[in-house]
């Protein structure tokens, strides 16, 4: 399966934020979306999810333009994981995960026993079964993010769109989320994840797509694309990219010079 953007120009009220977007996400692949604050990552996501209408160009899911998919049909294939946010009412964690089943229900339907068992499995997969009966509003940011991931998994999608899933999380929780992302890739999901840490691309052995100066600037495997010059160009700071070669951790790392 494939989620694809062709010659996309995206923005608000006819004003383009990013243009010339050509991009492809396949199942079983992670793409890390890099770019500085305000580069247009969220604009790209909103457009990919069909929440924001493209100014021009087309977005195709399984070769079919996304505006031809109904909301439930689309949600059964593409899950969205936003940044952790507040909720006005104290739904339980179980309820929140069950919301992920909405696209599989009929118009007036509500989740049944099968949906509950599936939600249970999603919680178990993320090792948060113990939170099941807690109120979502009382959880820590990291726990909330895991619950939102469980909710997206309950949609049983083929693709996940993750908007900075590690923002506002502590160091440990960030790593836990990255591990989950890797595990999900191995379950043959296609994942696009916006992140502010280029290290995440190395940790996931991911492809990267870099949005810079209003367009898709570079794409390719992280090891080839994420270089010292490119990071300097995007973020405006000196960063050393080094291979950490001991047997447990054979990958590139970013070390900013302070």
């Amino acid at each position, binding site marked *: 399966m494939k989620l694809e953007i062709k010659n996309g120009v995206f923005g608000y009220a006819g004003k383009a934020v990013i243009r010339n977007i050509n991009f492809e996400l396949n199942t079983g692949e992670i793409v890390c979306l890099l770019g500085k604050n305000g580069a247009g990552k969220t604009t790209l996501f909103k457009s990919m999810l069909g929440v924001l209408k493209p100014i021009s160009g087309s977005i195709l899911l399984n070769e079919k333009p996304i505006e031809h998919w109904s909301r439930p049909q689309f949600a059964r294939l593409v899950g969205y994981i936003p940044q952790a946010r507040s909720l006005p009412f104290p739904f339980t964690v179980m309820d929140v995960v069950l919301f992920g089943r909405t696209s599989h229900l009929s118009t007036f339907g*509500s989740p049944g026993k099968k949906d509950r068992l599936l939600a249970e499995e999603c919680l178990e997969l993320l090792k948060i079964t113990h939170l099941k009966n807690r109120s979502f509003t009382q959880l820590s940011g990291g726990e909330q993010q895991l619950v939102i991931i469980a909710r997206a998994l309950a949609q049983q999608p083929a693709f996940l769109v993750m908007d900075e899933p590690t923002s506002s999380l502590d160091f440990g929780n960030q790593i836990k989320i990255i591990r989950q992302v890797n595990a999900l890739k191995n379950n043959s999901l296609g994942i696009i994840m916006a992140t502010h840490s280029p290290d995440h691309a190395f940790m996931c052995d991911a492809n990267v797509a870099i949005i810079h100066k209003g367009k898709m600037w570079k794409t390719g495997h992280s090891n080839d694309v994420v270089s010292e010059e490119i990071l300097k160009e995007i973020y405006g700071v000196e960063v050393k990219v080094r291979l950490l070669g001991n047997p447990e951790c054979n990958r590139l790392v970013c070390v900013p010079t302070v």
Partner: protein
Amino acid sequence: MNETIKVKQMESGKLTLIFTGLVILLVSAILFSACLGRYPLSVSDLLTYIFTGRSIDTSLPTVLLNVRLPRIIGALIVGAVLSVAGTAYQGLFRNPMVSPDILGVSSGAGFGASLAITLSLSLIGIQLMAFAFSMLAVFLALFVSKIISKNHDKILMLVLSGMVTAAIFNALISLMKYIADSDSKLPDITFWLMGSLASITFDEIKVVLPLVTIGIVPMLLLGWKLNVLSFGDEEAKALGVNTGRLRLIIICCATLITASVVCIAGLIGWIGLIIPHFSRFLVGPNHKYLLPASCLSGSIFMLLVDDVARSATSLEIPLGILISLIGAPLFLVFLSKSTKKSW
């Protein structure tokens, strides 16, 4: 997995208990209200009459069927409608401080009624005008928000448009009061705006009940979808909910039912704000259970308050005043209770 099912059973057991309790309370409140009044009845007389049709007292059927029953049914409908509309709007606007008149439904009705009274229309004329203008006010708010919210936050624009519409109609109500004859018309307008169930008849109920049913059933059925809106428009869309359509359906249904009761009962505030909180306290935030619970507790509350209104003093206390006097302190109590449960 066994544990999930056990928890689920425990949960549904608790819900069954709460709903059974509410139904018992409702039936008791109805019996109590039927016996209460200037012409006192005993519960045993009442039950004998209900089950055998026989009555020792010849005036019992008249009092019961022509005076008390329409008013009891009226109170139940008005209470249920305002509470369900309030609950649905709080979910829809993702804000527990919202009440059913957020989009101007009450202000529209108030203006329609004042205009009709000023023009010396009949009672039916007043009700029709109140109904028409309350619908008009909401559709005006919807229309304005549609025009101004191109890429802005749609919900915020809707609330603001509602506020503007309400402000305009409130100004028009004041204008009507200003030009109305201060001996005959002004008291009528003032009295209508305070809300009352005193003059409800079976004929009115026969018209209102089908309208209310048409509006309330889809809302009860859409409870689960309404939950998903709590996460905001974008997330709800990504979860597969057609948010624009859902919002429109809920607003149309809520407006239809609110307009239907406001035109026979006048403006009754607070209940649409308190009962959702109380019901959330009882059954939690899941609208699948919250909406029916609001329906039941709203009708019980309304019936009891109306009992006070008609029998506490020799002169009937206007319902709108009484509800605010009882409702406002009660709201504080629920609020302090619910902050402990963190919402």
